[in-house]
């Protein structure tokens, strides 16, 4: 089965991806709602900023994270006084994953809010439901397919995150050496190719399962909502 090194990489990857997904979720729901339902003058700027991590070279992103959140960084030095360290720490890997995967997560959530019939909100309002109540009882449940798909995409993208992570938090066994970074390390060793192959296969299985899960969620909800 899996060697201790492989297990550690798998565990770390899963931990980082899970925390990145759970932490991003409320932000992505808020952002998706905001972009779907509100028009404002600087919207184009927010959209561009949101997409930026998708087109920026990951190493640039990792470097920017170091500048901002490194131990001597603009924000990092204040976090440091609170005892929070992000650089060269698994929590930093969570932050890197969150930023890289955020646009992928927001997009399906935003779409499900956008495609929702707005008259449902009007109806619920005229029945006497306050706006926050309408959001929790109507909009959020109807966005569940988008929320699940966004979460799966975020989780899978986090599992595969490499460039920004290795730049920001390095390659520390049992701390920041996730599956992709472990593959990279094995490939640097003269006899590591076999070990790398096993993790490559594992990555393929994980990514493929996520996409299949996505497919079934879509199917299920389309049936359920009769769309």
């Amino acid at each position: 089965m899996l060697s201790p090194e492989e297990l550690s990489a798998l565990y770390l990857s899963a931990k980082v991806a899970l925390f990145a997904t759970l932490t991003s979720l409320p932000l992505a729901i808020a952002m998706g709602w905001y972009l779907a339902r509100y028009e404002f003058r600087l919207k184009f700027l927010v959209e561009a900023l949101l997409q930026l991590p998708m087109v920026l070279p990951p190493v640039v992103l990792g470097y920017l994270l170091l500048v901002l959140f490194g131990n001597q960084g603009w924000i990092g030095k204040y976090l440091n006084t609170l005892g929070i360290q992000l650089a060269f720490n698994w929590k930093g890997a969570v932050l890197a994953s969150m930023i890289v995967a955020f646009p992928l997560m927001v997009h399906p959530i935003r779409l499900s809010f956008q495609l929702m019939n707005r008259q449902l909100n009007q109806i619920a309002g005229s029945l006497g439901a306050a706006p926050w109540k309408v959001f929790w009882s109507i909009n959020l449940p109807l966005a569940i397919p988008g929320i699940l798909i966004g979460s799966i995409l975020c989780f899978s993208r986090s599992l595969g995150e490499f460039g920004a992570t290795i730049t920001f938090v390095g390659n520390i066994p049992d701390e920041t050496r996730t599956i992709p970074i472990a593959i990279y390390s094995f490939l640097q060793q003269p006899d590591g190719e076999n070990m790398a192959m096993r993790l490559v296969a594992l990555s393929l299985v994980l990514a493929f399962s996520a996409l299949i899960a996505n497919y079934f969620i879509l199917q299920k909800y389309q049936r359920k909502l009769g769309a």
Partner: protein
Amino acid sequence: MLKCDFQYRHADFSLNVELEMQQPLLGIVGASGSGKSTLLKNIVGLLKPQQGYIQFNQRILLDTKQNIHVPMHQRKIALIFQNALLFPHLNVQQNLRYAEKLVAKPERKFQFEEVLELLELRPLIQRKANQLSGGEAQRVSIGRALLSSPNLLLLDEPLTGLDSKLKQQILPFFKRMKDELDLPMIYVTHHPEELEYLGANILQLNQGQMT
């Protein structure tokens, strides 16, 4: 009961309303584009007139002079659209209960069972929202509106989109509501014969002007 005197403008359309409703059922007819839906949306609170006031049973819902604008969810005015707009993630029973639960028990005007009876909804209660015909869905949406215990019910062409056979099936329910419930209604349509059947007083709306 309902007293309105307001002006609503949007782009080059302007709606001028001065009306006082005393009877339990008021019908409003007008061609499409005459401002019928706009009128109802202003009363329910979806749109905000630039000028004027709306008052229901001594309660001021809107007064631009005093800067009063009661939000839609506090007006206790229910609105029925052309399409039923049931909440698609809830079944019929849950759709009805959704509205009922928004009202504190002592303030409920209609009992759940009573509404099921009136609109003959009992056989539909376990169905999903997407397993209903157009006419059934519209009946559920009327039931949902009643269970929200409104003081006034606005119907915005509730039969448009249904074929004439279905219309004949639903119209009697409106008649029953008018005769059996203590609930004022404004019924908007471009088919005056529906209003004649219901015995409503009729107002005309032409290009945003009441006649």
